[in-house]
């Protein structure tokens, strides 16, 4: 298993380099540049700004320079008043990590709880949960968010409708992020639990005389976690880098908006930095998920 981890980690920088190059190429291939605005810049002014950003150099030179300065953390954002890409990320990532981790924890607890409740009490509860989670998966966050803000914020007056800073600001965006993820987890885990009901080792455990609760807790849940963990890898990377919808609806100063804005602003450097960051997180989360699956299911061999 150590060799497996080592190989994945050694491969990561190469993957990121390819990713950075693709982002570099795509950002420049899109029509429009960072200094194209409604009010046309005088040609000399535009040329001066392009030169200052190094965008007048030959492409291979631009590529080398951006990769090198991205690696050293000195790559400037083109549209953020002298801030570097690293500084933009440092300013925003903690917010997204905090919100994303909260949502992830809530989703995990609620999702697994619902799956266990459904497995334990089949019948009306189970069917109700199945319908509820189906609805929660289907309704997009740009509907859930505003509805929560209207209901709990404007009508009941319990929570601020938007903003960031206190615990009360965390609740609505975390709930909005968590609801569809919790529903996915609940459905995945519930399905897997159903499959494990007749697995050989579960039958053996029952034959040994273990009660339903203990079988569920010790033998079935562990296996049911496998699809959940596989789903959690990419889901975690997504949640931790911020969701643009939730950030817009609740005015959360996270990284998700930067993804969209950097592309809309044609801030080529920030686009590249964020793409690489997301790639790195995705690699890390997927690796963690693979390892966790191997731990949860002894039959899985990593090679």
């Amino acid at each position, binding site marked *: 298993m150590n060799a497996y981890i080592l190989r994945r980690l050694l491969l990561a920088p190469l993957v990121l380099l390819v990713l950075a190059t693709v982002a570099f190429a795509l950002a420049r291939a*899109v*029509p*429009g*540049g960072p200094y*194209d*605005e*409604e*009010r*046309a*810049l*005088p*040609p*000399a*002014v535009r040329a*001066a*700004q392009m030169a*200052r950003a190094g965008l007048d150099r030959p492409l291979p030179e631009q590529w080398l320079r951006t990769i090198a300065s991205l690696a050293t953390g000195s790559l400037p954002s083109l*549209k*953020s*008043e*002298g*801030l570097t890409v690293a500084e*933009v990320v440092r*300013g*925003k990532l903690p917010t997204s990590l905090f919100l994303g981790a909260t949502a992830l924890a809530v989703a995990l607890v609620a999702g697994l709880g619902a799956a266990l409740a459904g497995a334990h009490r089949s019948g009306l509860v189970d069917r109700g949960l199945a319908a509820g989670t189906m609805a929660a998966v289907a309704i997009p966050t740009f509907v859930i968010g*505003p509805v929560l*803000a*209207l209901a709990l*914020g*404007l009508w009941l*007056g*319990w*929570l*601020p*409708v*938007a*903003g*960031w800073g206190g615990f*009360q600001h965390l609740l609505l965006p975390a709930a909005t992020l968590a609801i569809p993820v919790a529903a996915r987890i609940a459905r995945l885990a519930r399905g897997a639990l159903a499959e494990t009901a007749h697995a050989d080792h579960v039958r053996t455990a029952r034959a040994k005389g273990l009660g339903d609760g203990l079988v569920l807790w010790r033998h079935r849940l562990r296996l049911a976690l496998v699809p959940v963990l596989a789903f959690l890898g990419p889901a975690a990377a997504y949640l931790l880098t911020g969701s643009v919808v939730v950030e*817009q*609806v*609740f*005015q959360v*100063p996270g990284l998700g*908006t*930067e993804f969209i*804005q950097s592309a*809309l*602003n*044609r801030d080529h450097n920030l686009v590249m930095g964020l793409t690489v960051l997301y790639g790195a997180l995705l690699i890390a989360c997927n690796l963690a998920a693979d390892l966790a699956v191997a731990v949860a299911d002894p039959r899985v061999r990593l090679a």
Partner: protein
Amino acid sequence: VRVLLLAVALTLAATEQHFIFNNESEPKTLDPHTMTGIVEARLALAQHEGLVALHPATLAPQPGLAEHWTISADGTVYTFHLRDGLRWSDGTPFTAQDLRASWLRALAPATAAPYAELLDPIVGAQAFREGKGDAAAVGISAPDTRTVIVTLARPCGYFLQLCAFHITFPVPLAAIQAHGERWTQPGNARVMGPFVLDRWLPRERIELVPNPHWHGRAEVRLTRITALPIADQDTSWRLFQQGAIHWMPSIPLAKWDEVRWHPGYYVSPHFATYFYRLNCTRPPFTDARVRRALSLAIDREVLTSQILRAGQVPATWLTPAHGDYRPPTGLATDRDAARRLLAEAGYGPGGAPLRCELLFNTSDAHRQIAEAIASQWKAVLGAEVTLVNREWKMYIADMDRLEYDIARASWVGDFLDPETFVGMWVTGGGNNRTGWSHAGFDALLNEARTERDPARRLERYREAERILVEEQFPIIPLYIYVNQGLLADRVRGWHENVRDEHPFQHLWLAE
């Protein structure tokens, strides 16, 4: 308990003079010399002041950093006398030399200020700006610490307006030298305006507090200003309803039917026009008759009364009326004339069918307007119009490279003068973007720019605009915008004006 806390917070906010507004997006810069947008200009107005300030209601020039000024009889020499005892926000004295150095910095090629060309009327400014001349040759001098003399190469009827515009605001050169682009960060920025930057959390909030050394400090009543960069108007509307913000300068248009009944809703004329550009380098739009026919075929009333509905003014002219300027009336809808003109040009029934693309940037309103106009063109002229929707930067790039047939556009006047609307159509102008060129128009524009008599000057602009909207039609004006926003009823000192510009030093909150 939470309700109680909220109540306490609201009471505290009520006694505190903390003005919170939605500035709608993150400013691209806080440097008054390199900014171009409205979002940025709102913050510049808080932090900076020019030689001249504008009256909050009439926008007429009134004393700013200069307490008075004189203009020579030929209109080319402006002598400004600074107020006594002016200080930067850190307490160091402000001198006429500081102002001269700031203007030269705005003009310097290295600054790459988008608006620097507005200062071209000043002797030597254009040469210096283009790197061909010397700073010493620019017609700005500071004979003593309180006098600034500006010499113009030609009279300029709107020069005082420019002295209240952000390209002429003084900036701290020492701080710029020490901090480079980061001079605008809190702590680095020494400013001359009523407020100073206290906190700048990108895409989260910008907070300003009163500048203790501003000359009018005694009259400033707000103790803090918070600008939020909320792009989502629905979110902003919820925050407004919850009482968390005092002003939002736009409204969620999809909720107009709900919003307009709110007591805080306001609507007022705007100094901005919505129009279509025609690509005059592409057949059939090389033919002025085709362009004219397209304009004559449009019923603008349908757009304003059925799609927009908030009091927008259907317009067959470009410049919104203001001050003493009355724009030409343009040509009213005339479908028969439109068909006749098109047939003369060889298109329409009996000729070649008119096929073209209509480019607009992504927005529901732009699409609805484009659909309405395309269907009118279809009905009246038999034109086959394809709608082309582009993301913002692609739309700008297409327009810049003249890769379009017809393109949706809008323009907000920078200062209260017809120059800001009419001047952009000069041959080769950066904002022309139609490829249109007309010697008669250029000549009239040049006369207008150098005319000293105010009435005759406006008459020249009117004549030039008449060529645009009654003869040549490189553009098809559609309507004059309105400002629509929401203002909390506690806000006092608010003055409606066509620029929807509200200097914070005049505002305060009632109990």
